[in-house]
């Protein structure tokens, strides 16, 4: 697959995340913080998010097994989860967190458990999508260096026109014309 096609695929995938409501503008904030000093910032923060979420999901699962339910504790865990989800722009996950906290406030255990199942689903979908996205973005990079004889340090002006949004900084060093 030629380089432009891969870049376009990555860009389309990224756009679909926004169009389908998986991510919101906070994700763009992350992208804007990525630069030469922090070339993998977005992936770094998202990886941190996975680690944090795994721990929180486990805590919530354990808390949901207790009887009677400690709604304060559940709300506390979910507050954390909401905080980190909103930091990376995970829109659907964040909305499930909000719903869960409503049920906690109302002392509705059934509602909490139902919402938690939904939340885990949304989280798993987002994680899979982002993993694929970063993998594709990474693949587009190194392959280029292998195929092209000499990378130049210029950004391709045409590509910039076609490319919507984030250009991982490593791409800047792989174009040669």
């Amino acid at each position, binding site marked *: 697959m030629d380089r432009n096609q891969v870049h376009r695929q990555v860009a389309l995938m990224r756009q679909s995340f926004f169009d389908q409501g998986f991510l919101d503008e*906070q994700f763009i*904030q*992350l992208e*804007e*913080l990525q630069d030469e*000093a*922090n070339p993998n*910032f977005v992936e*770094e*923060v998202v990886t*941190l*998010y996975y680690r*944090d979420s795994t721990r929180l999901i486990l805590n919530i699962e354990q808390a949901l097994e207790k009887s009677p339910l400690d709604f304060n504790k559940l709300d*506390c865990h979910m*507050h*954390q989860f*909401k*905080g*980190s989800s*909103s*930091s*990376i*722009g995970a829109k659907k996950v964040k909305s499930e967190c909000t719903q869960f906290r409503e049920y906690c406030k109302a002392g509705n255990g059934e509602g909490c458990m139902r919402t938690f199942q939904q939340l885990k689903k949304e989280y798993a979908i987002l994680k899979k999508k982002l993993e694929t996205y970063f993998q594709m973005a990474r693949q587009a990079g190194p392959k280029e260096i292998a195929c092209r004889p000499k990378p130049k340090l210029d950004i391709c002006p045409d590509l910039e026109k076609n490319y919507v949004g984030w250009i991982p900084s490593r791409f800047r060093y792989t174009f040669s014309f």
Partner: protein
Amino acid sequence: MNKNDGHVDSIPVPEHVDNTQFPDGLRVLAIDDNSVCLRLLEALLIKCRYKVAATTNAIEALEMLRQNKDNFDIVITDVNNLDMDGFSLLDIIGIEMDLPVIMISADDKKSTVMKGIRHGARDYLLKPVRIEEIKNIWQHVVRKSLSDPNKSVHYNRSNR
């Protein structure tokens, strides 16, 4: 003693300090027990060319402040889920260390904001924090030094 002569460009820092670079290098202590939020906050602060020490542990942060409070110009902290009561933290930083402190929270309830202000928070930022808000935190350092005319702001570029 520093006087604000009312000139818009003059910033109340000691005369030997190069204030053309201010607020670059402003020394910020960031506290948030959520490591994702903390990483983001740290990146925002660095992007604003501030110097950052970041920790998830509020008690440790207090220890650090107690040992050398002159090493920081401002503290920015979440108040929920810390290893100590967030509002007590605000009290201690304001009273004991006399540093301006900014509160951040994912909670936008008016009562929480009021509580923060009552405990001495200079400002209240709602998560997720935006870079425009972080860019402005230096104003609280200046405002504070204006209201304490006997205390000069230790903005020291030699720390770079």
